[in-house]
């Protein structure tokens, strides 16, 4: 259970039922029990931070998602980890249903601090941290700058990428404009669907092919709904993570 802070609103709506269906698909051939996942919002100066939460216990495990994505992508893990602890997974600013970042060109340090302010609003002081990809870099930054608040940290797929690869990624990560001709809807679909098949998603070459294969159609559908909510701002945290010199931040 999230410590009850002053800014918690738990939301259940029709979308939640779609989430539940997707979660059943992902959990289908596993053996772990499924924990109910709830959603809420925390107030910070920029607006609201949406988060998912499950389970009970202290310290909570705070989970930071990859890019382009939202805490929705973490639901299969949240449902399992929530069996044994409290889990809180915020959408990074500019992603999912969180508000957009305030600076025009925000840094990774800014996104990490914004997460910390959201946790303050939820009354969370000391926590365990999990981060995947962009989220791993955010967790890393928090562990370096606030070791008093992070007890243990899991870095799931943290990049130590070369500058040449970073330049290539930066060229392709751009905001998608919302057009009258609705092409942004198709762009969002292909961005999500193709990310299962290629890395990066726009590079349709044998060299970029991934071995994951496509999941049940409901999974990319759900991700597209989240992507559409932030299609003009998703790139800001992604770009900040790529530019962030995490190798220099490590010993």
């Amino acid at each position, binding site marked *: 259970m999230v410590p009850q802070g002053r800014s918690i609103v738990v939301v259940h709506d029709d979308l939640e039922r779609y989430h539940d269906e997707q979660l059943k698909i992902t959990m289908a051939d596993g053996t772990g029990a499924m924990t109910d996942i709830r959603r809420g919002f925390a107030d910070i100066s920029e607006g609201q931070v949406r988060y998912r939460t499950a389970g009970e216990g202290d310290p909570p495990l705070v989970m930071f998602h990859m890019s382009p994505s939202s805490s929705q992508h973490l639901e299969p893990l949240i449902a399992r980890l929530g069996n044994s602890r409290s889990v809180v997974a915020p959408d990074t600013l500019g992603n999912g249903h969180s508000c957009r970042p305030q600076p025009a060109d925000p840094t990774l340090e800014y996104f990490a601090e914004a997460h910390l302010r959201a946790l303050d609003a939820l009354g969370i002081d000391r926590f365990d941290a999990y981060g995947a990809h962009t989220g791993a870099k955010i967790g890393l930054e928090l562990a370096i700058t606030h070791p008093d608040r992070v007890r243990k940290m899991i870095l799931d*797929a943290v990049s130590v990428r070369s500058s040449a690869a970073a330049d290539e990624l930066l060229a392709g990560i751009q905001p998608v404009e919302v057009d009258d001709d609705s092409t942004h809807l198709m762009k969002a679909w292909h961005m999500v669907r193709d990310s299962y098949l290629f890395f990066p998603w726009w590079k349709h070459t044998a060299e970029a092919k991934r*071995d994951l294969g496509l999941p049940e159609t409901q999974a990319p559908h759900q991700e597209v709904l989240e992507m559409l909510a932030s299609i003009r701002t998703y790139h800001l945290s992604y770009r900040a993570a790529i530019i962030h010199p995490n190798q220099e931040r490590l010993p």
Partner: protein
Amino acid sequence: MIKVLTLIACAESDQLFPMLDEAAALVPNATKAPLPSRKDGAGYDEAARIFCEFLDS
């Protein structure tokens, strides 16, 4: 400098899996955990088990 106890993990199907050793070497006293692919529920189960084992140790 990272002083926090850290688990460096990566799923074998992830594009960053080849960087796992390099990443683990950069964090003092880090525990390294190669994870199975999360194509299905069993992969998620195993990842969650490893994460809980680290957090509860």
